[in-house]
């Protein structure tokens, strides 16, 4: 994880309150140059407020924001080398596309010839090369946000901030733009900070995801780690779909820990910082659950197994979701719909199984408790 004290963009102990409610609490984060970081959290967790403090539209009550080592905390917005793409379409309606994109350049008195070249390049980057003279109201939502992106990027900001820019768009357009955004990031090697409440979006685009709740960082690691080794019950519930079952830690048994859920002992991955008797939860990702017909014998020993009955079968398209009653709990398991389903249907008896190392055990941490460091060091992240 980047050391906040030497990173390209440093957010140091920043706090902000509106009236009586503390929205951002002692927030520490370092963003490396060229990194794509997402701030992920539920509504009201403070992610947008934090972003606005980086852009200068809000000022922190305490703490500091440094860019390339320089303190920009008190610098007004229009003087910061930072640009934002907002959630709503904020293209100026009285200017056409080209005039919108060159707005920042004109303000800095960039010569006309140079500016029009830069505008052309920016529009090409967002794949709208011939849109320059179009009036803004003729653009679709996706096109408008792409123009907004071009308008921000043409100024070569040191950090690009994006405040849920795709949340108002249709699903298909959103998916397309996520890919485009990722490609643009790779091409420009810019530093992007992205705010979203959609965990799929965050996981698919980011080098690192900062999960936030109630103004604090819960966990800030690579997407894979958040998914496979969540740091707390909150992260496990928020990221990825899965069954998060609260229980009590019984014992550690070698590479495995045992959790008691409603009297049933289940085996999951080793949880070194939990002690016997601690309240914990076992996380069973739907995709990690194996489903075997009840008559199966001879499953490998290491697997944790339970018997149950299929309650509901839901065809979702790429996967089939099974709701299974097992051991007094309701379990959701997913299977690729193109695989052989083994004749499972509603009412079937079934054996569910998982490898303990695929089932992390997490503690129920309070929202702003200290964060455990990431296991996957920055260099090893998949790009």
């Amino acid at each position, binding site marked *: 994880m980047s050391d906040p004290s030497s990173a390209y963009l440093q957010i*140091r*102990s920043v706090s902000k309150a509106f009236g009586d409610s503390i929205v951002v609490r002692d927030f520490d984060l370092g963003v490396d140059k060229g990194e794509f970081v997402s701030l992920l959290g539920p509504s009201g967790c403070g992610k947008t407020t934090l972003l606005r403090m980086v852009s200068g539209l809000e*000022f*922190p*009550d*305490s*703490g*500091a*924001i*440094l860019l390339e080592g320089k*303190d920009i*905390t*008190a*610098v007004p917005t229009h003087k910061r080398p930072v640009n934002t793409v907002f959630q709503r379409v904020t293209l100026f309606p009285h200017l056409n596309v080209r005039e919108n994109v060159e707005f920042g350049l004109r303000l800095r008195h960039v010569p006309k010839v140079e500016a029009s070249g830069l505008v052309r390049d920016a529009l090409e980057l967002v794949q709208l090369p011939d849109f320059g003279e179009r009036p803004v109201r003729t653009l679709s939502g996706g096109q408008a946000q792409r123009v907004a992106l071009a308008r921000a990027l043409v100024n070569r900001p040191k950090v690009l901030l994006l405040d849920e820019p795709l949340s108002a768009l249709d699903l298909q357009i959103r998916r397309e733009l996520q890919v485009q955004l990722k490609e643009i990031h790779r091409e420009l090697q810019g530093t992007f900070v992205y705010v979203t409440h959609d965990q799929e979006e965050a996981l698919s685009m980011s080098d690192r995801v900062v999960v936030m709740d109630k103004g604090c960082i819960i966990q800030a690691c690579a997407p894979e780690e958040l998914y496979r080794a969540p740091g707390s019950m909150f992260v496990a519930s928020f990221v990825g779909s899965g069954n998060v079952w609260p229980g009590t830690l019984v014992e550690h048994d070698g590479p495995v820990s045992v959790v008691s859920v409603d009297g049933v002992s289940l085996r999951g991955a080793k949880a070194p910082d939990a002690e016997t008797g601690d309240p914990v939860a076992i996380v069973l990702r739907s995709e990690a659950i194996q489903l075997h017909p009840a008559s199966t014998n001879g499953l490998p020993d290491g697997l944790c197994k339970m018997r149950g009955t299929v309650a509901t079968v839901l065809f979702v398209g790429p996967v089939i979701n099974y709701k299974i009653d097992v051991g007094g709990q309701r379990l959701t398991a997913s299977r690729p719909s193109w695989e052989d389903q083994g004749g499972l249907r509603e009412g079937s008896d079934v054996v569910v199984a998982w490898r303990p190392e695929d089932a992390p055990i997490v503690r129920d941490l309070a929202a702003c408790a200290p964060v455990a460091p990431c296991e996957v060091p920055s260099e090893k992240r998949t790009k």
Partner: protein
Amino acid sequence: MPAASTAAALGGNRSARRRRRLTIVVLLAPALVIVGGALLIPTLNLLVQSFAQSLGYGQIGYDFTLSNYTSVLTDPLYRSLAMRSFGLGAVTGVACLVLAYPVAFYVSFRLRRGRNLALYLVVLSLFASYLVRLYAWYTVLGTRGMINGALMSLGIVDQPISIILFNRFSLFIAFVNIFLPFSILMLTSTMQNIPREIIDSAHDLGAGPVKTFTRVVLPLTMTGLIGAFAYTFILTSGDYITPALLGGASANTALANTITDQLLTQGNPPTGAAISFVMLVVFFVVYYLVGQLERFKGI
């Protein structure tokens, strides 16, 4: 170092807050000065004057007295005058509502393509000079005007009748003509605020056109009705020009004329001020009631 940065952050915060407050004050100051100065101060001045002594010929002696108010409130002449002015205002308000409602209903709910044009025409009639419309009625109703001319040429009367001018009926007609556009606009605005879905829901639940109207549309437009009535009532009761032109030359045609008479002709500002204040109180009571009713209706 965090300490210095915190100070910078705090400084940025505080100076931003101070600048913001200053900006608000600067932006609002001129408007407040004008409305406050031109409304509050003169009103206070009038209030003070209403408690002062009249020394004749426009002179005012600033000794506190209630005599102006007592004479105004107890004198039967003033009382009947008030009755007449407020009564006319109320009748005008009701008449405007009666005429405006069907028009507003038609324009809001039945008209689609012509709606903008119709509304534009109403706005046009609103701005088409108060005075000219007044004068128009003067010509229509006058002794040598249209109606008399028609009556005489048709042989119905030998001499021009003067009862249609210079009395409350002519005032009534003129007031309705002048304030009707405003009532129409207020009502259409209220009606257009009713989302189409609500009416569709009513139909869906089994209400026919009549029931939909009485149980859904009418209650929802109540605020518009009350507002339009209040506005018409107040502006009619306090009007000076129309009674002066169409009501006859007497100073006792309407409250407004009496006030002006006291102020400018009789040289008795305190009495004029006292009458105005009684009027003002009535108006504020009406507006207050309207405000309360709106809250009661929950709209």
